[in-house]
């Protein structure tokens, strides 16, 4: 098996890697927005429960969450495909991290922004959607892009619950060919080729977003 064959073999798993990432984002983005905003707006007991949900997804080891949901859900009568479980667990884990960027982005805004909205007679939801969120979303976009890259990397885990992603393909090829150096170097390179452009995009966005952040008084 030549290096090209190994490369092509590993790339056969790229579809699954992309699919898990895409489905994962369907869980991650709404979770991050809803829970980040909710944590920002609420106080007292409500905030405690919202924080608890976020902490559960964020502070657990993602590899264990994946196994627990993969093995324990069927026992309580919930049967989901490996793809759905993986997308949900990886997505909500990433969403937990991203929710903190949403909350921090909202908290970092000047009080005057909200007060100006109130002075204009806008309702609280209108202030949130029209004034606060657009600014917070810009400020948190580098963190969000970084989280997408972390999500792509985390998809390597789905090889452990029988999905044939790039990592699974590499292990499969390694079972028939004793060329570990070539196979696992190719696997690392394959992830690098996918993830590095995302990292560069994040850096570019961060450089563009930062100047605005540095001048809190809008000078």
């Amino acid at each position, binding site marked *: 098996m030549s290096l090209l064959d190994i490369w092509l073999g590993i790339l056969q798993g790229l579809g699954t890697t992309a699919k898990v990432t895409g489905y994962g984002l369907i869980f991650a983005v709404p979770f991050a927005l809803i829970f980040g905003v909710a944590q920002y707006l609420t106080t007292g007991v409500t905030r405690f429960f919202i924080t608890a949900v976020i902490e559960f997804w964020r502070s657990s080891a*993602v590899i*264990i969450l994946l196994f*627990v949901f993969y093995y*324990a859900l069927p*026992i309580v009568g919930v049967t989901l495909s490996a793809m759905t479980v993986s997308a949900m667990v990886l997505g909500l884990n990433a969403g937990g991290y991203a929710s903190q960027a949403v909350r921090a982005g909202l908290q970092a805004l000047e009080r005057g922004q909200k007060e100006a909205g109130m002075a204009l007679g806008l309702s609280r939801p209108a202030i949130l959607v029209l004034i606060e969120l657009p600014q917070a979303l810009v400020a948190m976009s580098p963190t969000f892009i970084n989280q997408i890259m972390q999500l792509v990397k985390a998809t390597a885990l789905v090889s452990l619950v029988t999905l044939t992603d790039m990592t699974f393909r590499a292990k499969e090829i390694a079972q028939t060919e004793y060329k570990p150096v070539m196979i*696992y170097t190719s696997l*690392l390179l394959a992830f*690098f080729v996918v993830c590095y452009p995302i990292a560069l995009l994040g850096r570019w966005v961060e450089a563009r977003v930062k100047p605005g952040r540095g001048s809190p008084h809008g000078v």
Partner: protein
Amino acid sequence: MGFDPEFALSTVPTILGAIGTTLLVAISSGLGASALGFCFEMVRRGGGTAGLITRFLIDFIRSTPVLAWLYFLYFVLPFYGIRLGAMSVGVIGLSLYFSGYLAEVFKAGIDAIPKGQQEAAKALSLGRLDTIVFVIAPQMLRNIAAPMGNYFVSILKATPYLAVLAVPEMLGRAFDVASETYRYAEPLTVAGILFLALALVISRAVKRLELRLFKDSSH
């Protein structure tokens, strides 16, 4: 066959018994990643060809999944005749993976030190090593305490990855119980709860340590 709480409870002592291995792996990897990350940052800062290569290596590590690194080391090292135990391979893998992140932490910590400090060291004709040890490092430690603490928690949460190399840390032990009893949900759920509790306790302790450090520095 539903979820059996009594059986779950009976697995707690076995799984909790592996907490020593989990902590040993986390602490060794934390020290390894710090040492390696600091060396990487020093070489990168030095510039030249070595600096460029290190810059690429750090970006490469950060763009690739930890699971792929563990497989890489586990299968590639023996190919070159280097035979290490699974736990050593795991610790090396986690150290290498997190060194890429810690190098960035060191970079930020050093960048935050005023330039005059290095110029003063130069004026006192301190050597390069003396400048690092006596001038840069002590000031850097203050700057990096908080992010270092967060990364230690991340390393702790990455230790269950070693279960894929059959290291008997908590998740590995949970899988042992599962394969002996053919019941996966209970031991894995127990491992998940124990890890979540451990991560929460340690991140709380890290936060308390940070507060104390910053309190001291303000006086």
